């Protein structure tokens, strides 16, 4: 009777399981245990952090956590990419922008109790930029992206005195300060880095408003309030970052009340949230641009009038309604409006097929022409359904007589062929890093970035006047002067029309109504120091 006994035993276990669970009734175990009046903000996203050492991660999942634990030398304002003091309180440049001297905040301590000072800043930068540094463990990708390799343009970092640090650059870099504000350049405790070595990514120690508590892989990361924080102190006691991969399952947890806020919504669910009295919808200001680049080296697309005609032919609002669930703004400039330097005076090209036809006729092609339209094979926030978007643009262009064939390749090949100028019309996009206009205009439209094989400027747009404005802006350290230079550049770019700027998408965020003080930032992550939860 072994089998029978076994079966009986198994059945009993099963019955017990059901019984115990049944006893739970409708109450929520989380609430039972959290009864000691701790204020916990539970935030969910689709993936776990890949690491908690901010310099060695590039994904939002990780940076969201590190942003709470670490401070940067400069910070972005809550609602723009304007710069404001962080761990550094004052800064000045010398020698045409080749030297920067930063005054540091005094009396700040890392979470492990060690002091924050110029030596600590020097240690961090030396670790990042010097491949021979004993703690240079990891790939330091963002350092290479923003400062151009190891050691890149930062030639030397010197601790002048306890609270003064001096950077010597090999060449001026206008967005230098904006780079320093990026979450990835959070300042770590040198002692903790030395102590944990290769495992530092699991044991982060910074100076931020929250301290690291624990990280359970694929489940949760927990941080707690830093009561000794130098700035405005956090309003919640703890933040739990949960990983819930499925968008629908995550929304269901929000509706059930087991989480307080989430990112990563299906566009279709936006209505659900608007209709739920317990939930609120927040919008992240855009830091991206989706565009249709026109290869200005190709036959028809050489002609400015034809490029302007294509601009008039594309119905951007229809794209936004059909493919972005309305969660985007039509673009007229190559950079998003949340950045300083954005020129709102530029009129752009309104949707007007008749005008497009007239321009084509003026250019000598009253019956249009044939060309190819390249569609990205992968979805990006600025281009959620590239093939469908390409089809819609194809139809728009057909209305003015331009016949297009849609072409696509796998992602690597698509990029390589684009960098090689093999395309005609090319769907693409860009998400900004540091909130500096240079990060859009210079990277995407300067003539120096048209080298075949590695071009970032896939319109292969070469305008000497634009280029000299962009290069002047790089050398200038006065932000108001730079602002003017970028605004002028946008006017010229608009006239030349190397792109059809399509959209700036605004990712939606959902939270309980009881959550306040959550200010989504254009850079993609924000500090939760001001977040509060009404009970």
């Amino acid at each position, binding site marked *: 009777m072994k089998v029978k006994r076994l079966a009986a035993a*198994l059945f009993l276990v099963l019955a017990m399981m059901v019984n115990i669970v049944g006893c739970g009734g409708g109450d929520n175990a989380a609430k039972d245990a959290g009864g000691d009046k701790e204020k916990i903000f539970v935030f969910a996203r689709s993936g776990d952090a890949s690491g908690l050492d901010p310099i060695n991660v590039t994904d939002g999942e990780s940076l969201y956590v590190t942003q709470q634990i670490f401070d940067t030398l400069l910070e972005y304002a809550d609602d723009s990419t304007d710069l404001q003091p962080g761990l550094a309180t004052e800064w000045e440049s010398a020698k045409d922008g080749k030297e920067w001297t930063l005054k540091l905040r005094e009396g700040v301590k890392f979470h492990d109790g060690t002091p924050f000072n110029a030596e600590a800043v020097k240690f961090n930068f030396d670790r990042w930029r010097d491949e021979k540094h004993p703690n240079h463990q*990891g790939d330091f990708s963002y350092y290479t992206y923003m400062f151009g390799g190891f050691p890149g343009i930062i030639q030397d970092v010197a601790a002048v005195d306890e609270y003064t640090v001096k950077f010597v650059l090999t060449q001026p870099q206008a967005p230098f300060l904006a780079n320093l504000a990026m979450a990835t350049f959070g300042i770590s405790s040198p002692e903790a880095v030395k102590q944990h070595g290769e495992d530092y990514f699991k044991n982060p120690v910074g100076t931020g408003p929250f301290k690291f508590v624990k990280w359970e892989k694929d489940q949760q990361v927990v941080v707690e309030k830093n009561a000794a924080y130098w700035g405005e102190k956090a309003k919640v006691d703890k933040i739990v970052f949960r990983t819930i991969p499925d968008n629908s399952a995550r929304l269901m947890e929000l509706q059930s009340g087991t989480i307080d806020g989430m990112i990563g919504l299906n566009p279709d669910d936006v209505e659900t949230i608007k209709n739920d009295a317990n939930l609120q919808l927040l919008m992240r200001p855009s830091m991206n641009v989706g565009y249709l680049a026109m290869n200005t080296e190709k036959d028809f697309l050489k002609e400015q009038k034809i490029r302007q005609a294509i601009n008039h032919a594309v119905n951007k609002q229809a794209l936004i309604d059909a493919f972005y669930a309305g969660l985007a703004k039509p673009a007229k400039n190559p950079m998003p409006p949340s950045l300083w330097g954005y020129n709102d005076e530029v009129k752009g090209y309104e949707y007007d097929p008749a005008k497009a036809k007239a321009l084509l006729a003026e250019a000598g092609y009253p019956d249009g022409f044939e060309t190819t339209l390249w569609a990205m094979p992968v979805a990006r926030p600025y281009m959620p359904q590239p093939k469908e978007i390409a089809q819609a643009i194809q139809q728009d262009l057909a209305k003015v007589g331009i016949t297009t064939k849609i072409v696509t390749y796998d992602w690597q090949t698509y990029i390589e062929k684009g960098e090689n100028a093999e395309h005609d019309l090319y769907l693409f996009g860009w998400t900004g890093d540091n909130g500096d206009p240079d990060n859009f205009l210079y990277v995407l439209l300067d003539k120096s970035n048209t080298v075949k094989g590695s071009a970032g400027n896939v319109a292969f747009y070469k305008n000497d006047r634009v280029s000299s404005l962009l290069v002047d802006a790089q050398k200038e350290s006065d932000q108001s002067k730079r602002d003017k230079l970028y605004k002028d550049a946008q006017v010229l770019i608009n006239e030349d029309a190397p792109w059809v700027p399509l959209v700036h998408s605004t990712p939606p965020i959902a939270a309980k109504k009881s959550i306040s003080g959550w200010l989504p930032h254009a850079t993609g992550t924000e500090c939760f120091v001001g977040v509060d939860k009404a009970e």
Partner: protein
Amino acid sequence: MTRYIIKRLIGLIPVIIGVSIIAFLLIHLIPGDPARAILGERATEQALNSLREQLGLNDPLHVQYGRFMGQILQGDFGRSVITNSPVIEEFAARFPATLELSVAAMLIAVVVGILAGVISAVRQYSVFDNVSMVGALIGVSLPIFWLGLMMQWLFAFKLGLLDASARLSVGISLDPITNFYVLDSLITGNWAALKDTLRHLVMPSFALATIPMAIIARMTRSSMLEVLKQDYIRTARAKGLKNNTVIFKHALKNAFLPILTVMGLQFGTLMGGAVLTETIFSWPGIGRLMYEAIMQRDFPVVQNGILIISLIFVFINLIVDILYSFVDPRIRLE
């Protein structure tokens, strides 16, 4: 027996070599440059070169394969390019979650599946038989992502009986000893954690159990039907044995061999991590690890992960084969 096991272990070598070649070649099957595929479109030439160097992509294929196997034979399964931690550690961290879920799911599948199969066979063509066999068909056909979401909607959102995702609620603490949360909470006598663990475990394990449950039920039914027609069953009944004794001791035991095979195969599959179930229910197991590694193009994790999962699978099959001799003494393992 020992000789049999040794022979089987030797027989595994070609299988493992085959799997290792496929896993190894994966990185070379993607179009373009693997280093760029891993690091993404914004990587600098410097970063690309150092990754190529790190992964040894500049060497000829056979040299790369030799190195790959050499490291594995020394127990070195490489490091994740995303987190930089050893692949084996990443696996070890997720394995208990997958094992706990698989065991719970198999428990449900075996108990429900065998009972349903036996009753269906004994009462062939009855209402119960028809209903449970149609149910089994539906169970095999239901997509888990749909079933999982519906269960979450009903039991977590509408009724609030169970928890929709993760292994523990926020705010419940449990000291990890074995990382099997049911065991840990029993060992430490932490009843709040036990209750919470079970509330989280029930839905994913039922969702995961549907397919094996259905397969086991159908296999039990057909195997039992065949055995129940045998002469020795008639003899047993003629001896005047109780019906239950005939069914469970004489019939089920003899019908058990094909059922055991199916159970082994299903369990092996579950151990590889159930990607869909683990994703819908945010279960931090091996399926999730593999899914995320693929999405992030973390090739060392994908390559070595495939190898580790295949090893687990073949060893479970080996164990099942050994179990045959216990279930059916006629089988001599020589």
